[in-house]
């Protein structure tokens, strides 16, 4: 890599800091990660395809991608409301609610998993209310959705909050003076300004849900073809010492993650650009 150092920079430690950064990054992240791709390369294309397109695996993609998408949509909707309420309104307990939004981030996923399972089981606080309605959550795909909504909750709120704070009051005032109703102002002025950040939060929430393991496996029931998520299939294959098969599926998930990461970077860049010109 060609490194061009500005000639007038007098600060010390560049070589050491960058050298250590690259060394540590390679050792911890890049070399182990490349192992996944190199391991997969030992498979023939037919073997790879058979591993990643087995019916049970495809069913797990459908569940993982479908439930993650739905969870991200629910989080986008409630996240927008929550962020708006936290920035614009004042109410009792607002600071506590604001701090609690990060709970899914701070609470270990296994703890979230067993708590949600207990809550939504037939005898649980919420489960016993849903049972008369014929709704079963624990040990069904619906349980997967609940867990994924939980772990993705902070992302939309936290990406939207700073953007709502920075909205120019003049824009809304101008819209009001020009005769727009509050709803028109929201749909025509506010929402378009929030959209890139909303999409960013949505995508982060989706990406996070896709790889989630700890909170899901307790509540999902893990029935093959029905409530088995893709990360669990990877674990199952590992336990059967099918390393190549586990890695092939992991590579599919990694490609999905990398695509989402690129999308998130693009959306964040777009949000910054929009805010800079506003």
């Amino acid at each position, binding site marked *: 890599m060609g490194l061009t150092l500005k000639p007038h920079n007098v600060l010390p*430690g560049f070589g050491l800091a960058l050298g250590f950064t690259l060394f*540590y990054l390679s050792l911890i992240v890049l070399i*182990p990660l490349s192992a996944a791709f190199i391991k997969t390369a030992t498979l023939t294309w037919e073997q790879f395809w058979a591993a990643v397109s087995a019916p049970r695996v495809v069913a797990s993609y459908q569940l993982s991608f479908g439930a993650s998408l739905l969870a991200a949509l629910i989080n986008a909707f409630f996240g927008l409301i929550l962020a708006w309420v936290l920035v614009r*309104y004042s109410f009792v307990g607002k600071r506590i609610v604001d701090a609690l939004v990060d709970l899914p981030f701070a609470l270990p996923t296994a703890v979230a998993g067993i708590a949600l399972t207990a809550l939504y089981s037939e005898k*649980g606080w919420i489960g016993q209310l849903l049972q008369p309605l014929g709704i079963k959550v624990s040990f069904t795909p619906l349980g997967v959705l609940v867990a994924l909504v939980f772990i993705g909750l902070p992302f939309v709120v936290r990406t939207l909050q700073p953007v709502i704070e920075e909205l120019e009051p003049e824009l809304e005032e101008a819209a009001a003076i020009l005769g727009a109703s509050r709803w028109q102002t929201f749909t025509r002025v506010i929402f378009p300004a929030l959209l890139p950040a909303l999409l960013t939060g949505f995508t982060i929430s989706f990406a996070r849900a896709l790889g989630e393991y700890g909170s899901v496996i307790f509540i999902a029931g893990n029935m093959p073809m029905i409530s088995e998520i893709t990360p669990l299939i990877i674990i199952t294959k590992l336990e059967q010492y099918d390393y190549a098969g586990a890695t092939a599926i*992991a590579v599919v998930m990694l490609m999905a993650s990398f695509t989402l990461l690129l999308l998130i970077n693009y959306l964040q860049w777009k949000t910054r650009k929009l805010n800079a010109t506003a």
Partner: protein
Amino acid sequence: MWDTLSYPEALVEPGQRSRVRRGVREEPAAVRYLLIGAALLFVGLMLIVPLSSVFYEALKKGLDVYFKAITDPDALSSIRLTLLVAAVAVPANLVFGVAAAWAITKFEFRGKNFLITLIDLPFSISPVISGLIYVLVFGLQGWLGPWLAEHDIKVIFALPGIFLATIFVTFPFVARELIPLMQAQGKEEEEAALVLGASGWQMFRRVTLPNIKWGLLYGVILCNARAMGEFGAVSVVSGHVRGMTNTMPLHVEIAYNEYNFTAAFAVASLLALLALVTLLLKTFIEWRTRRNTISL
């Protein structure tokens, strides 16, 4: 401004003026209450109820059972291991975070944005895959497996594997907290220190460190919470050896799968307390730093 025209400046308190100004930027009261209600319902159902249920389930059978569960030898050894894992992973990523942020924010070089993306990479990777890649390198069938077996070194299903997997999943925390902060601070203060005759170490200790201390602490707190709570990645590399390679989250899983719910929730309640302390410290730092920027 249009809204103050009808209110002579002198008569309007600053707070009141912003209320007048906000007038057209406000939804009708009914909509406001509806939105607040929806937000509180969502937070209550998704966050507060699950959190309270952890403590309720843990204490359901009384304090005696609770204390017995957390002083059980296997539980205690999982607590010790979790503390040890955090004591290894957090300092490792702290040193890395400072080095990476220093190189990235104080110097210009090509490929910087790509480097930042690479540092963020572990966040976008499933915890399960984070564990898997270490099995591929250090496991018995892995690259270094035969060599390690020959020299009787265990990485997978042993402590080194748990350390590595935890370092991986908490890799970006400190760096990504420091990079924007140090970017905003620029390098004039450090340059001034050097011109005034400070050595590199003095400059770092007296100028850089005080400037970044809150950001550093923030990153460390988040890193620590994840290091103590990581489940998926650690689960893949640990091998679940009771009293040996079980961290607290793994202990919770095993107790739960054995239908020993009170024991599972008792240890889970300790992790939930950790989460609450994390949130409290995080909020405190946010409050502190916001105040600092206002008082500047």
